[in-house]
């Protein structure tokens, strides 16, 4: 844990400085996770702030300080999912925006080597985002948490509050779908 349990207890009791301490300790991790989950750097901070606002109002529902991290992950996943649903309702295209951002990033980079590296990274991001297009937002988030964030099944079980077997089945199906898309990409020479 990035903060002492005592700090969490104090924040639960309504201590604003303890809450500040928690936000300072976890904001970078939350920002990183959201960045990988939603793929829109310009909105990452906004979603992260929403996570901490939800955390503030739900701290009293936290049973014990030990389950704080899965709790925070759950809030992060839910806020990201709500955000993705909102933009889907608005009919915005993730890929188009990403490409625009990539162009901007490429323009702003000066060095040739750095530019090449960045282009490579952009290509990887674009490819994985394209593979993720073949699945639902729920499965995409789950697979990202498992494969990209590197969370264990035990941690996912705590976050999603479902049995490990059910998670395994869902993960297997999601991975199979991505694998199929990956095989097609390999056959098409995109990799």
């Amino acid at each position, binding site marked *: 844990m990035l903060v002492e349990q005592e700090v969490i207890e104090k924040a639960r009791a309504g201590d604003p400085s303890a809450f500040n301490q928690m936000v300072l300790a976890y904001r970078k991790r939350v920002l*990183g996770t959201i960045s990988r989950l939603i793929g829109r750097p310009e909105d990452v901070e906004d979603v992260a702030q929403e996570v*901490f606002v939800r955390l503030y109002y739900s701290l009293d529902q936290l049973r014990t300080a030990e389950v704080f991290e899965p709790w925070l992950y759950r809030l992060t996943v839910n806020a990201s999912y709500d955000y993705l649903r909102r933009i889907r309702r608005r009919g915005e295209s993730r890929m188009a925006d990403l490409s625009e951002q990539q162009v901007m990033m490429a323009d702003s980079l000066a060095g040739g080597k750095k530019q090449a590296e960045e282009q490579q990274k952009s290509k990887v991001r674009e490819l994985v985002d394209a593979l993720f297009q073949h699945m639902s937002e729920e499965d995409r988030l789950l697979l990202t948490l498992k494969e990209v964030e590197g969370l264990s099944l035990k941690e996912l079980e705590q976050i999603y509050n479902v049995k490990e077997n059910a998670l395994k089945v869902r993960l297997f199906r999601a991975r199979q779908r991505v694998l199929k898309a*990956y095989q097609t990409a390999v056959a098409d020479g995109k990799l």
Partner: protein
Amino acid sequence: MSTEDSGLDDLFQRYRAACPDVEPSATFMPVVWQKIEARRGFWSVFERLARTGMAAAAVLCLLLLALNFVTANQRAAFQSYTDALMADHSAEQTYYTEAIRSTPSGNEVPAALRH
């Protein structure tokens, strides 16, 4: 694990490395507190409305209870059903009462035809 499986794992690892680290802006914390306060304001309006509604419902409940208690006491003052009937003067206050006919009317069946 097939080569494609490990290729996919490798791609996920590269994806993790390719996702840029997002640094929080200087206004991150103040904005979090602003949002908390804004939501508190929003919810406090609902809270106040809910409290007012609950108070009004409680007063109404008490009034109904009191009314019920008074009428029950009035009913209990009568010893019996006949006392209650005697005390009830509502029939005397009605403006319309049907006339009681002492003589048979013309369209009644004659006594000779009754059997």
